[in-house]
């Protein structure tokens, strides 16, 4: 009888632990967060992806998320303007590395070490900003209906071959900040000399220049231009809708990191902390990966073919002076 009871207890305990959620949080913090009622987030995470994450926040913590979505630069503008003017509205800022570092230097963030951060690798934790929860990866995407896999470029260097002249669309590196950064970081993949030559040859191909990475992907999806320099995740996002997109397996891909931090003057600090804990949890990382994001958790990949083989190389952080200089330089190369 005792043995049966012991077995039942062991089974019951095992059942409880195996059914335990991947995400767990301090009940007192959740109670305090509920008292705050809501959390205000400014970010550049795409609305649909953000919505899936925010549903989890609502279900697990029981608070609403008011989300203000804009480009990374606009997110920084608004958060800093309110902060400096002493009218803080935001609890959480969630955007790219460069603007996050600037906001950090301005003292906008409070230090919060989330228990969920321990599950990220050491390399993906920034000493100022905490875990880099996702990477936004830039590559070469093409329309499979127009260019057969065998005829597609095999490397970045292939893009400057004569057969691809006039067939390439990319964001204007003199206007679009992430693309300026990408072009400026090419020497990380090719070395300085090769990169300088590649940039000049790329400009000589007269690519169609558009305002940002999304319109570049759209032009490939619609078939207006067959090849684009854009985010690799669009292969999945547009593929879900039926667009015949694929990407060139470059091996090493450059991109940027995304972070989230709590405002030092957050009107809802506990809700903000609970939000960060959930957002960095394995549950949420899986949700983001399912939506096509390259999250920084071992073994969790987006449903994009060969996503696990992608080697991520972080682009250079440029300061405002370097951005201005590079944009001027690329103006001479790409527009003249």
């Amino acid at each position, binding site marked *: 009888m005792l043995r049966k009871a012991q077995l039942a207890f062991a089974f019951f305990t095992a059942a409880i632990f195996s059914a335990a959620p991947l995400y767990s949080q301090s009940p007192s913090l959740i109670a305090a967060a509920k008292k705050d009622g809501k959390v205000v987030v400014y970010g550049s995470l795409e*609305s649909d992806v953000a919505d899936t994450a925010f549903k989890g926040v609502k279900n697990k913590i029981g608070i609403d998320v008011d989300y203000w979505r*804009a480009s990374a630069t606009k997110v920084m503008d608004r958060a*800093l303007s309110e902060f*400096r003017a002493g009218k803080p509205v935001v609890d959480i800022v969630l955007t790219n590395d460069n603007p996050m570092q600037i906001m950090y230097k301005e003292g906008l963030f409070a230090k919060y070490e989330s228990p969920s951060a321990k599950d990220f690798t050491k390399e993906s934790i920034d000493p100022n900003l905490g875990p880099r929860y996702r990477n936004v990866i830039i590559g070469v995407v093409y329309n499979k209906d127009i260019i057969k896999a065998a005829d597609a470029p095999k490397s970045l260097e292939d893009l400057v071959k004569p057969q691809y002249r006039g067939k390439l669309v990319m964001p204007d590196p003199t206007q*679009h900040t992430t693309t300026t950064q990408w072009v400026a970081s090419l020497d990380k993949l090719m070395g300085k000399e090769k990169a300088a030559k590649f940039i000049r040859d790329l400009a000589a191909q007269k690519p169609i220049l558009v305002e940002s990475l999304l319109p570049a992907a759209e032009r490939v999806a619609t078939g207006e231009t067959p090849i684009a320099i854009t985010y690799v995740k669009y292969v999945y996002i547009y593929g879900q809708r*039926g667009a015949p997109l694929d990407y060139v397996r470059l091996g090493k891909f450059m991109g940027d990191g995304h972070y989230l931090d709590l405002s030092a003057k957050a009107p809802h600090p506990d809700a903000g902390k609970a939000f960060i804990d959930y957002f960095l949890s394995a549950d949420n990382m899986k949700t983001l990966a399912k939506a096509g994001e390259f999250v920084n958790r071992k073994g969790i990949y987006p449903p994009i073919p060969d996503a696990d083989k992608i080697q991520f190389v972080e682009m250079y952080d440029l300061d405002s002076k370097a951005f201005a200089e590079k944009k001027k330089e690329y103006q001479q190369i790409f527009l003249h």
Partner: protein
Amino acid sequence: MSADERALTVAPSTTTAWSRTRLGAFLSQPLSWVFISVVGIVGFLSLYPTFFLFYGSLTDAPLGVPGHFTLGNYIRAYSDPEAYPLLLNSFIFGLGASGLSLVFALTLAWITIRTNAPFRRIFELTAIVPNILPPILVSISWVMLLNPSNGLINGLFVKLLGMEKGPFNIYSMPGLIFVESLILTPLAFLIVAAALKSMDPSLEESAKTLGSNEFGVMRRVTFPLIRPAILAAGTLNFVRAVESFDTPAIIALPARIEVFTTKIWREALGSFPTNHNLAATYGVGILVIALIFVYLYRHFTSQVENFSTVTGKGFRPHQIDLGRWRFAASGLALLLLVLLVLLPLLVLLLVAVLPYYHVPTWRTWHNLTLDHFRYVWTTPRVHRAFANSLFLALAGASVCMILASLASYITVRTKIVGRSLIDGLVFIPWAFPGTAMALGLLWAYVDFPIPIYGTIWIILIAYVTRFLPYGLRAVSSTIIQVHKELEEASVVCGAGFLATFRRVLIPMMRPGVMAGWIILVTIFLREFSATLFLYSPGAEPLGPLLYFLYLDGMRGRVAAIGLVISVISIILIAFAQRYSRWETN
């Protein structure tokens, strides 16, 4: 000069007692208090954010950080020799787009208002629809139609005529001018149509009696009479084109054509981090250009008596019988509406029923979806945005038109010293590029003593501040045509200012007031450049929602929402037009 106006003309005084008497006489008039209130409100709305922008242009630090006085931003912005050829490009673009929009608007307005062309009411109703579509969507629609690679119209030419390559290339200066002119046409149409509605056709009839043919009447009578409205529309559209960024971003960038706004974007607004001070400095430059045009406009229209056509002697605009040419006129109007409304809306409809946009093939029919419309019906965020925007559009447009009616009456009708100040004040916030002005509004109201930052009221204030000139132009071009003798008769009969304003002027100005109201409602329903900076995350209007969905590549959802907004705006326009017709008065 009427007794009221004599009392209101304050000349320099020689003695204090005399001044007191004059001041007393001035303040005893109800109109004086209206003048003081209008100048106070308009002055505050206009100068408060403008001050912050000027301040920003003369300092080296962003908002909230103590900086130093500097002229460095001006030196940097205007010592660059590359800036001047770009200004020339902007000038060509602005002139071409506003000129072409006037040709489209005049043709359409004349056919729909003054002729007996069949279906003219339907044409009139639909001519304003494009104003509701965000300019960025119109530009994208035309890229889908006319891009040299797989544009639908080019493809049609290639298929039907066996051409090797389509004949059109949207990525060119003519393409840029053409698309922008289509975007600007509804505004010009509303202003010109209002003036045509208020015109006394007896002058045209007299010209015909004296032997002039229809073309001669149009050239010698109709056209000169509506000149203020044409100039008003041309001025507004020129400035709007010069400061536009959406169309150049989509069409000029791939065409490698640079205009001044793309330079502003690269060096100030799109720089990292955003250089607010430099953006404000460029904004001041565009303001100067815009104010020159406002001055020219006022110079052209200073002889207001020349344009007075609605007198107390009885008038009733009626249609010109075009005979058998009326069908040709309808055909021409239809062609213009195909360009303005039908083609962009068809592209939108196509985008709204496809999972992602692509050139339609037989396979496409199997992939059609109503998912994007389902998103509109089932998403609380969309419902909330519609409610917010409808409130902002109806309340904002009504407040704007009340202010605009009073301001244009004072500017056009009275001789009050300093009345022309109102015109200048109203135009200042509008003449800045949208995003620069949004920065000024943010800086001005983020630390305002009354806590309106982060509420819907700050957006309402921003709309009234920025778009009051649209209302003012629409009413002014109508009020110029109403002869003073009607009000004078009212005053002689013993009516005070308010009674005369309410019983005589408002009914006479009604076409202009309603035209302005329609323009404003349609703009407010989709405005985003100022809204984006000012709305609080929980109270999102439609403009930012559309912008974010666009930013995230959700073209299908944007198109579906755009179509629903179009339907709502058509209902509002039909309602407003019903109340703007003379025959209903």
